[in-house]
């Protein structure tokens, strides 16, 4: 085989491989992680984060605005501290409410933000104080059982 045909085949091969990489990057995946423009970080403290993971989505009104970047435990407050990065285009009032929610019944957990009515907005590095912890199924069930049991105890006395 002459060198030119060989070069041609190798050229075709490399071009195909790079095209496949582009296909994977653009059509299959989304460049979301790097798509956050001029990001800034905020922190929220929770009593319980349930199954929230690093890189979980941060959503406002169902729109993806950022991702969780770090989760750590605050040894003084005995709380979980969730650090997340949001797109610089979005601003949130200081009385914004942070919830840990679940998409669907068994889906992944994400951080949902409910903007409040304040004029002032959160600055980079600020801490969100109003939070609601994740709903933990075991707790929910035991609460339900206790209340049932309590009902059962009080009912005969009535």
């Amino acid at each position, binding site marked *: 085989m002459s060198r030119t045909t060989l070069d041609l085949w190798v050229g075709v*091969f490399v071009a195909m*491989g790079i095209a496949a*990489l582009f296909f*994977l990057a653009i059509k299959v*995946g989304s460049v979301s992680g790097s798509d956050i423009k001029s990001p800034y970080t905020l922190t929220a403290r929770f009593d319980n984060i349930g199954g929230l993971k690093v890189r979980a989505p941060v959503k406002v009104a169902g729109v993806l605005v950022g991702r969780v970047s770090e989760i750590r435990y605050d040894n003084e407050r005995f709380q979980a501290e969730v650090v997340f990065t949001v797109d610089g285009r979005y601003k949130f009032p200081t009385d914004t409410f942070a919830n840990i929610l679940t998409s669907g019944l068994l889906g992944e957990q994400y951080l949902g933000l409910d903007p409040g009515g304040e004029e002032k907005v959160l600055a980079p590095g600020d801490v969100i104080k109003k939070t609601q912890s994740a709903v933990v199924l075991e707790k929910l069930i035991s609460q339900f059982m206790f209340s049932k049991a309590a009902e059962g105890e009080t009912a005969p006395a009535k």
Partner: protein
Amino acid sequence: MGGVLRKLGALAINGVWRLGFITRFFWMILLYSGQSFTRLHLTIRELYFSGVMSLLIILVSGLFVGLVLGLQGYETLQRYGASDSLGTLVALSLVRELGPVVAGLLFASRAGSAVTAEIGLMKVTEQLKAMDMMAVSPIARVVAPRFWGGVISMPLLAALFSAMGVFGGWLIGVVAIGVDDGAFWAQMQAAVDFRYDVINGVIKSCVFGVAVALIAVFEGYDCVPTAEGVSRAITRTVVSSALAILALDFVMTSFMFRG
């Protein structure tokens, strides 16, 4: 009992020895890699033999793996009413695991064994010694270009495998079964992250490329210079490559995709 232990000990010592050899060999290759890039046609030739010649098997296998993933995935997902997530399932399994791993295994048996056989036969027929006597380093002239040919081919082949697999999953899911086209791609794009999933997959395939190429050239260069020695070396290339790929995959997955 003592005999078994002794054998085990000998096996372990031998293994450590070989690991030491292969590491030294790796440094030698890197040291002598200059020519592979200054005289690019040497490497291009090897890209042809390990890349272009593996193209067909990689594309066909990728397509079939995608078809199977599509069928099986749909079967399972539709029980939970989640058949819209078919794209996610197919793409994530391919990009993160199956693409790099299966392409790596195929590459080891198609291109790795051929490289071992070629270098081994050159050793048997004293071509390597003759080259050395002509003051041309066989590592620079024969080994390094084959190594780099493999290292460059592997990620490209893995990407082609994954792309072909996604296409196969789409064929089954969307064209044959009738999953919604928009949902298929949209769900896939929402779940597959470029940096997290695609880049990590590419890193995996690069590491597999280095491992397979290194094992293949080493086994060829190190083989006992007889017909039997070459055939053993080829077997070792395929077996060691497969083990290396699976072990490295486990290690990398546990670092990349946890939490």
